[in-house]
């Protein structure tokens, strides 16, 4: 009797232990923390991993969703007063040229400031940064068309504030954003001659998606957006009543004297918008769509447009956790992720050029549909640039100066840093004593970085 009872308690104890180490447990495995850091951040950097490891899935996601920092500081050149448009007509060619050159310089300074921010050790809101990039790519605007760097910074700041907040607020803010108004030509949209650019992309790319509206709707929405422009003196959004078409419009089956806000509310009354955004965000984090899960999350999203809640829903799904290694890193994920593993090895100054050569020009997507996604990032041209970058990551790396980083990167074996370690053969040995084995660690890191599997997340 006594013996049996000991066995009984033993089993109970074993069960208790087992539950601690299953997915119900309080702490993440290294593989889970690595996966989360790759998909919701820029990769398995030491500080992040160490913070995530003791947490369970729910708490780890909560940690990532917390906002801790202000936006990056704007370069001084983007703080100067903007030259009002009407002054340009008094400029001679030389003055115009000088102006253009100074703005181009400032645009580069802006790209660089953002790149440094993404690389900075003090900057740990990795999921926020990922979502800034996501929304920038969703509500595309480009430095190539917007005349002032300051205006792109302002747009970035609007996105920064709302990236994890309410989609409704974000949508209302971005449509009024001066850079957006200029990028999609709404400053030229007036009742006499409507310009459809913003109206079309609002339906096609920002809210409903192709197939959920007609060409007639595009024309009617364009009419509703007439008069929304910018003040040419100080570049703030401004409504010009005399340019607005006050006549009746019929939009998505509703008829009325609609203006901008009414159009946005009509759109936000459509479940298709929630579905379209949910699907796009799902595919940002998971390689394949799961229509059932998307449908369920979309109907929740439709209730409150809470972006953080939607992200949590996606990251908590089993499909997310079963998906390690099935997606391709974007250029910024590859470069920023690599740079953050070995602080100082990649000068932040070179980042805008590096990612541009891989197809991702910061604040300047190729067109209004934005940058490529998934495997579309990889073609012969971009692939060569990517491999070249991974080679540079360890070139000239002096183990003595990177003892702390290398201890972390090699303690489990460098191949464990890859999204799918089994692809990297042979698996790396664990290297602990960096003071002695530093060179071996660097050599193995180089091998892992240059392996095609390093391009995956």
């Amino acid at each position, binding site marked *: 009797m006594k013996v049996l009872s000991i066995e009984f308690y033993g089993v109970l104890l074993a069960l208790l232990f087992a539950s601690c180490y299953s997915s119900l447990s309080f702490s993440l495995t290294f593989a889970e923390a690595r996966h989360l850091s790759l998909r919701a951040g820029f990769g398995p950097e030491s500080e992040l991993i160490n913070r995530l490891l003791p947490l369970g899935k729910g708490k780890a996601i909560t940690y990532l969703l917390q906002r801790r920092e202000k936006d990056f500081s704007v370069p001084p050149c983007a703080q100067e007063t903007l030259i009002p448009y009407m002054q340009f007509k008094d400029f001679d060619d030389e003055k115009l040229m000088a102006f253009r050159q100074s703005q181009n310089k400032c645009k580069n300074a802006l790209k660089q400031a953002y790149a440094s921010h993404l690389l900075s050790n003090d900057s740990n809101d990795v999921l926020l940064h990922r979502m800034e990039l996501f929304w920038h790519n969703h509500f595309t605007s480009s430095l190539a068309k917007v005349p002032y760097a300051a205006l792109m910074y302002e747009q970035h700041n609007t996105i920064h504030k709302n990236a994890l907040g309410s989609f409704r607020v974000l949508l209302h803010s971005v449509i009024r954003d001066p850079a957006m108004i200029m990028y999609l030509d709404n400053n030229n949209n007036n009742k006499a001659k*409507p*310009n459809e650019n913003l109206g*079309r992309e609002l339906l096609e790319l920002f809210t409903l998606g192709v197939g959920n509206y007609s060409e007639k709707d595009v024309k009617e929405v364009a009419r509703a957006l007439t008069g929304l422009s910018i003040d040419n003196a100080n570049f703030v959004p401004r409504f010009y009543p005399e340019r607005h078409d006050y006549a009746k419009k019929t939009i998505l089956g509703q008829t009325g004297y609609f203006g901008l806000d009414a159009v946005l509310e009509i759109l936000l009354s459509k479940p298709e918008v929630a579905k379209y955004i949910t699907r796009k965000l799902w595919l940002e984090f998971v390689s394949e769509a799961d229509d059932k899960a998307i449908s369920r999350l979309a109907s929740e999203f439709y209730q409150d447009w809470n972006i953080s809640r939607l992200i949590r829903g996606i990251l908590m799904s089993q499909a997310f956790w079963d998906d390690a290694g099935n997606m391709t890193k974007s250029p910024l994920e590859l470069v920023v992720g690599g740079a953050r593993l070995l602080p100082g090895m990649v000068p932040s100054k070179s980042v805008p050029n590096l990612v541009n050569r891989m197809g991702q020009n910061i604040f300047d997507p190729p067109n209004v549909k934005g940058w490529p996604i998934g495997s579309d990032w*990889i073609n*012969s*041209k971009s692939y*060569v640039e990517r491999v070249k970058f991974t080679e540079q990551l360890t070139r000239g790396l002096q183990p003595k100066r990177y003892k702390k980083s290398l201890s972390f990167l090699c303690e489990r074996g460098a191949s464990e840093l890859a999204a799918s370690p089994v*692809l990297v053969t042979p698996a790396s040995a664990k290297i602990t004593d960096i003071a002695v084995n530093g060179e071996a660690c660097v050599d193995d890191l180089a091998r892992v970085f240059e392996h*095609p599997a390093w391009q995956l997340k």
Partner: protein
Amino acid sequence: MAIKMNRRELIQFLLLVGAVGTVPLVCSAPLGGARKQRALVLVELNGGNDSLNCFIPLAQEARYKALRPALHLSAEERVKLDDNIALHKALSPLRNGWLDKDLALVHGLGYPGPNLSHFRSIEIWDTASNSDSYKTTGWLSSLAKQPAKSGVDALVLGRNSGPVAGGKGAVLQADLLRHFLGKSRQLGHIDGAKNNAAYSHLLSVQNNLVSVAKDLLPILQKKDVVKTIFPETLLGRQLAEIAQLINLGVDTRVYKVALSGFDTHRNQKPVHQRLLSQLSAALLAFREEMIRSGHWDDVVVMTYSEFGRRPKMNGSGGTDHGTAASHIVMGGKVQGGHIGTYPALPEKDNANMQFTTDFRALYQTVLDRWFEFPDIRLADGVEGALPLFRVS
């Protein structure tokens, strides 16, 4: 040449025996006297080219002027081809081909139920799908049924590999070949798992690069192959590289280049003028080089774009997205002249033109008559019967 050896093996063999540099790697006349490989050079006009201001319908001039008070081209800004059509002056270098009757203008190209979104419409043009059906492979992707010995079935210089993507063929994409072939030569071949789509794609790109670099680099590095001076624009340099490959007998079937910036919603006149000048100067050099080297009969050059633009100008000195458009087809075997009917300019102000020729009839003609792949059918009820090529 009785030894059975494909070109790749031949090159490796030559490398082994140390004969590189003394023996031409690729004969400029094809081995065994077989017919030279026919090639298609696609030129994408990215953004939606305003073909109405490229090829002005003189018979409809009054309406044209009325729709475009500040944007129409006056007699000084255009070059007359015949009583029906005048060219934008910036396109005047194309007149050589017109006079020699190896340049055709195919008018009114479009499709039923036109889509005015850039992305959807270029997808339709790239995949030759119906407006409301979705295809995942480009209209030229199945050409790889007979793989090229060069290891490159399609070479895409610049953006968008849409027309050749999704098939089994090896697609090489770069801005300029010479910039990266050297780097890719340093990669190594890797075998790997195939149940991960993202990884499979990476491996196929890497492995393709390894073999192609080995083959093409020596060909590209040969001096004095192209003798015509090409413009120093990116498009000019890209077409010069293509000319070099064709001159040296590389058997790639499809080449694609792209010129961007045609989405002229505002201030169109100077922008469009600059783009058309770049286009025509590069095409002129390419034509001259192909004639000079005796390959003009092996090449067809064809422009395309996601759509034409709205006949009526907008309030910003530009034009919004439109539908039907004319495009250029040129080559030594091309039967010059007008093909199809120029669409009527619309009576309603903000309306678009009605297409008169399904663009897939043009594609199908190229597949049937140029590549002689009649088993590839692009669309039900669309025949490849345009009188595009000389009967000889």
